[in-house]
């Protein structure tokens, strides 16, 4: 029998519940508390060697178990589909004890907020070259490539500017951020912000004001989430032990 792992936290008073009812895990499984070193891990028994199917119900069950802990403390979520033997899980936690503690220190008292900024225009603002009709196929091809490169550079520059603007707007409330700039035509910026719980209301208010300043952009804001984006310790482990 293997274990499906949901998240790791510092200390938990008991199993999480929603409205006094126990939270159920993947496939309706009972969620158990496993103590390893100084940590508490939420797990459920899992019959099978491979990861569970990616279905809406399974994904939501995973999210619900992790989110239920968020009321008590800030956990480090495991990625969906983590199925291991108990001794493997114990070895993993023991080997990474210091990195896990450091990561828990970083996220303590915080939640993750997600902001995606999408360009409101249907057409990318790509420079048009009027002389294209007067040229042969080779020159037209090269001009088209040039137009694509210029468009890509412009989108990249726009995305950088929007990301800098976003940081300027909400940076006061952000303890840590992960930002990816997209060079696709519509999605400009995908940002994850680590925000102290007591600052979330102010962060939202600030974001609401900021959105009004940029009506040409679409904002998709979600949260608070457990710190999924800020939980990966692999970099720290690699740095410390020289392996990955």
């Amino acid at each position: 029998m293997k274990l499906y792992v949901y998240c790791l936290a510092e200390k938990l008073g008991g199993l999480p519940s929603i409205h006094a009812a126990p939270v159920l895990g993947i496939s309706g499984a009972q969620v158990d508390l496993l103590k390893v070193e100084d940590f508490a891990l939420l797990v459920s028994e899992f019959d099978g060697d491979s990861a569970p199917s990616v279905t809406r119900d399974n994904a939501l069950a995973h999210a619900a178990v992790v989110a239920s802990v968020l009321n008590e403390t800030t956990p480090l979520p495991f990625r969906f589909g983590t199925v291991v033997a108990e001794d493997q899980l114990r070895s993993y936690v023991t080997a990474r004890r210091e990195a896990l503690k450091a990561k828990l220190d970083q996220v303590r008292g915080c939640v993750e907020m997600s902001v995606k900024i999408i360009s409101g225009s249907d057409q990318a603002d790509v420079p048009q070259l009027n002389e294209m009709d007067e040229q042969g196929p080779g020159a037209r091809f090269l001009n088209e490539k040039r137009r694509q490169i210029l468009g890509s550079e412009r989108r990249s520059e726009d995305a950088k500017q929007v990301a800098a603007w976003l940081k300027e707007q909400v940076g006061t409330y952000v303890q840590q951020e992960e930002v990816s700039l997209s060079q696709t035509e519509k999605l400009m910026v995908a940002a994850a912000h680590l925000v102290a719980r007591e600052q979330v209301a102010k962060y939202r208010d600030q974001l609401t004001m900021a959105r009004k300043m940029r009506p040409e952009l679409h904002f998709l804001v979600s949260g608070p989430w457990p710190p999924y984006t800020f939980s990966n310790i692999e970099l720290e482990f690699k740095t410390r032990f020289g392996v990955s």
Partner: protein
Amino acid sequence: MSSPFDQMLIESDVEQLEQADLSLLETLDHVLNRGLVIAGEITISVADIDLIFVGLNILVSSVETANEVVRNRK
């Protein structure tokens, strides 16, 4: 680098997506693409003694998987 779910968002008309769709996409984006990963089976041996062993379990999500999950909701 954008995730499969980001791609679905930008390929859709954002104004037309229901809040429930957005919530589901965001949930999938978080639980499938992020979080602690027990990433790889590692055995570090020194003088024939295994010091560290970590179980292997990597989940690969794809645009097709994401699409299927959202389709099944409807």
